């Protein structure tokens, strides 16, 4: 049974929330049950933003979890917070460009990607979120790249539509690391 | 040493840029490459010599980054003023 509880976390502006939503949209497209819940409120002003996304073949109980089955960390504070929390056997995807430390966990799979660097190369460091997301779906097989691309097309804002193709490329680049 | 000088409490700066617009001698810019502890590109002084100590920067800065000094007036000028 497919069931993945993922936390995506980074600085505000790094697109953690959007990556989570995209994952959620794609989950729905593949008829999974989906929940997405952000941290909200004053802590957001503090600078970090994170969301929890659950995709499952069965109805979802708790939408807030302590120990994710996967975590995508975009910056150092997120790494420090979530690396220890990933469930044994789980997955950790690390934005190497901004995270100068390495995971010491032996009981989980760790994928390290210079995502911000790759994104910068593709034209915009803000696409690091998608690089990491690409790796995530490749590694988990939770949903297909096609769903993700198609939802990206639907939900990208007008302002950012020019970035659609580079965004897709970011997904693919990331997938190569998984 | 110019007519004035400012001391910056860089870590308070949020890089809003307001001071850069009001400095009459245009010596304030946001540093494009550096980040302060808060993660902002903070203000920096390009040429302190030109500072006239007008305190415009301090007047507009929402985050009280500036301490401002000005060359003391000549005693006789002060007397004339009294």
């Amino acid at each position, binding site marked *: 049974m497919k069931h993945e509880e993922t936390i995506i976390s980074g600085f505000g502006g790094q697109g953690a929330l959007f990556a989570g939503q995209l994952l959620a949209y794609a989950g729905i497209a593949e008829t999974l049950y989906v*929940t*997405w819940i952000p941290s*909200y*409120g*004053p802590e957001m002003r503090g600078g970090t933003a994170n969301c929890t996304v659950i995709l499952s073949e069965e*109805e979802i109980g708790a939408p807030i979890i302590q120990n994710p089955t996967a975590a995508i960390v975009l910056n150092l504070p997120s790494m420090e917070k979530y690396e220890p929390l990933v469930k044994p056997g789980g997955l950790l995807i690390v934005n190497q460009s901004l995270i100068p430390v390495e995971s010491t966990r032996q009981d989980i799979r760790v994928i390290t990607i210079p995502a911000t660097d790759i994104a910068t190369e593709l034209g915009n460091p803000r696409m690091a979120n998608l690089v990491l997301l690409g790796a995530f779906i490749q590694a988990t097989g939770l949903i297909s790249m096609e769903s993700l691309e198609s939802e990206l097309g639907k939900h990208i804002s007008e302002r950012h539509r020019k970035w659609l193709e580079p965004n897709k490329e970011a997904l693919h680049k990331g997938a190569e690391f998984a | 040493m110019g007519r004035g000088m400012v001391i910056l409490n860089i870590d308070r700066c949020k890089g809003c840029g307001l001071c850069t617009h009001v400095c009459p001698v245009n010596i304030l810019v946001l540093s494009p490459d550096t980040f302060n502890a808060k993660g902002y590109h903070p203000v920096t002084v390009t040429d302190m010599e030109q500072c006239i100590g007008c305190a415009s920067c301090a007047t507009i800065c929402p985050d009280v980054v500036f301490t401002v000094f000005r060359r003391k007036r000549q005693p006789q000028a002060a007397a004339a003023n009294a």
Partner: protein
Amino acid sequence: MAKELLKGNVAFAEAAVRYGLEAYFGYPITPQSEALEHLSGRMVELGRVFLQAESEVAAVNMVYGAASAGVRVMTSTSGPGFALMAEGLSYIAGSEVPAVFVNMMRGGPGLGNIQPSQADYFFMTKTAGHGDFHPLVLAPASIQELIDMMGLAFELAEKYRTLVYIAGDGSLGQMMESAELPPMQPLREKRPDWAVIGCEGRDPNIITSLYLGAKNLEAVNIRLQKKLAEIKQNETRWKEYETEDAEILLVAYGTVGRICTSVVRESRKQGLKIGLLRPQTLWPFPDTRIRELAAQVKAILVSEMSAGQMLEDVERTAQGQCPVKFYGRLGGVVPLTDEILSETRKLVREVA
């Protein structure tokens, strides 16, 4: 309609629109403002009434006015705003006009914070402000249920000419979930007979909560209490999960209720006979069923995001048939599956 990814606040607002909401009056407050924002666009687009009031006190009284005119009307708010509505709610109760209120509860008391909470349980279920009255309180646990209950809320409000509350919390308002919105329904064509819309061709209608003389007001109250008894009879709703053979019964509503479905799932995996009763109406409260289950199980664990409010209703209905324990988190903290699970295990050991 297909499933969409919907944010709780947007979902209930759009659901209300589709269920025929004719007027909305509200005041921004986190964590429900997205509902007001959504309606500020949608209602205007559809030529319906949207007005941002100058305060919650004004909002509740605008709702009272529009409800008196017989339209489908609602507002939404959170704790502090809801508190300001108390007097108006009591007037609405006393004059028996239908109106729907959504409270996305946040941490209190006072300004508190904007994190999820269930600490307004007493405030919502025991009384509509001053005087004897119970609003009908619906407690959704998912965004789909929130959507569905929006329709139910209007239906019940109008059927019984009563106040209906939806008791949500910040996390339900802020989360997104896959859910299906209803199709757009046509607006009602006729206002009810009792509505104030000008007295053409009939005697004037009067909407009031004033009844001079104790005997007169007592008669009104007796009628209100009869109506409440009827609601209790007909509209008590709850969901059960694995209760047939349960030895420990969890009782939880809303967000904590859905978390407890995970607890049940986990504990069953571990071979523990745990069941869950999740009240969908907080008033009327599923008294009878809980009393029955209290006779069956070895213990009950109530869990809330509060210091233990629904707990009192469970204690009252369990009638000492089994121990009733409590696990709660306060001030905006959402309990985790594991926490409740470990409390449950503890209880299993205690009653073994």
